[in-house]
């Protein structure tokens, strides 16, 4: 019975696999988004359980600890609100001055908070899954950041979840500039950077560039995906190669322990 089924099953297998192999990139993303939609409730449940377990292990806080933490957070909240108000005023003033100088207005972005529900399980990629999707206004190739700096960008977007490729992945390329210099280059993750020691490199710098360790690297805004002025990391070391200069950069955000992020979803109205 089973032997008679071998040839038909091989044929059916070959046809179905062929259909999958020749999917267009658009349809492939649709399949991926569909499957992400199926698996994300399980990932979210797993993430919640993992968080509860971690909280349990850390132990319950005393009432005094909670009270002092609450006090501290309230003060921090007030400080941030005040700073935000000042910055908004400065932003409006800046845009007014830019428009009077005939410069293009700097876009004001709206940030969507998101929680990381799962980390990538594959060996060669650096990705995370977040709990926001197309219903929250997330689209493909939107920048993802934290208050400390750049995290990456969205790729596959399902209804209630999305995949974010981290800045430490080799496929995530970001146009960047070195603070205090005219030097610009492309930030790219390194193949061996997945896992516990993410490292990224700034390529295509000029060989004469004198970049000191500790110099801040910001996005330059070239390419249109990432807004300019977002901190990417700090230079660890600079070396000259045959054709260009290369800086090893330590990401500003600890990508291995990251829990909450913001997705830049569009202009703030």
């Amino acid at each position, binding site marked *: 019975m*089973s032997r008679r*089924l*071998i040839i038909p*099953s*091989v044929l059916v*297998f070959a046809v*179905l*696999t062929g259909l*999958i*192999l*020749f*999917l267009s*990139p658009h349809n*492939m*993303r649709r*399949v*991926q988004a*569909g*499957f*992400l939609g199926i*698996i994300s409730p*399980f*990932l979210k449940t*797993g*993430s919640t359980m*993992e968080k509860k377990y971690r909280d349990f292990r850390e132990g319950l806080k005393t009432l005094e600890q909670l009270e002092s933490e609450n006090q501290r957070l309230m003060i921090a909240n007030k400080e941030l609100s005040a700073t935000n108000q000042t910055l908004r005023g400065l932003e409006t003033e800046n845009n007014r001055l830019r428009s009077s100088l005939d410069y293009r207005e700097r876009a004001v972005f709206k940030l969507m908070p998101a929680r990381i529900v*799962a*980390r*990538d*399980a*594959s*060996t*060669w*990629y650096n*990705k995370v*899954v977040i709990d926001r999707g197309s219903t929250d206004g997330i689209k493909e*190739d939107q920048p993802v950041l934290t208050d400390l700096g750049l995290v990456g*960008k969205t*790729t*596959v977007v399902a209804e209630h979840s999305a995949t974010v*490729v981290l800045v430490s*992945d*080799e*496929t*995530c390329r970001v146009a960047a500039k070195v603070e205090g210099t005219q030097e610009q280059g492309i930030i790219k993750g390194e*193949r*061996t950077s*997945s*896992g*516990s*020691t993410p490292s990224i490199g700034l390529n295509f710098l000029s060989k004469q560039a004198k970049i000191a360790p500790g110099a801040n690297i910001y996005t330059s805004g070239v390419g249109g*995906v990432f807004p300019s002025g977002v901190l990417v990391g700090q230079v660890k070391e600079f070396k000259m190669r045959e054709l260009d200069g290369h800086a090893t950069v330590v990401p500003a955000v600890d990508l*291995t322990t990251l829990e909450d992020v913001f997705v830049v979803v569009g202009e703030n109205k």
Partner: protein
Amino acid sequence: MIFFFLLLIGMFVALVAQHFIGPLPVIGSRVLFLPIIMFYGALALPVPGMLALAFCGGLMWDALNVLSVEGNVEIAMGWSIVLYAALGALMGGFRPLFQRGRWEIHCLLSGVCTAFVVLAEYLMITFRREPVVFLFDKEIWWRIGGTGLVAVLLSPFFFFAFNYLAFLVGFDPQPERNARRSR
């Protein structure tokens, strides 16, 4: 049939669980459950079942892991299906021995095949990424070999658990051993 669906559910649960286990400290290799279940299925099921399992497992893996950035696809979806089927066929060659009740070599082979999956992924992305540089330093080898080593260590537990599940649902993956025992 029930056992096939149990393996399928096992693969799905494994896929979810893998996300909550980070890379191993120092060596950076991953703990992959899905290939172990797939290769167990290749031993326990006949060829049509193995192919169906390879199709579902490969599709699930690719749907979650294939990366496309700015419209560029590195590894086309479906390659894992081909890879799992080919390695499943290789494992199937050792099926008669498994049916006789031996599974030591199969656990070892399961680890080797898991490492081969990681190696194949590495080669594929290396061919696609520019410049094409085959970097094979200690870290890369540990990621490939370490993943296989972890699979070798985990395989006996998975093999035992699924053999027990098979027993519970009335499926016999090792008929010759059980026939010998009943004699």
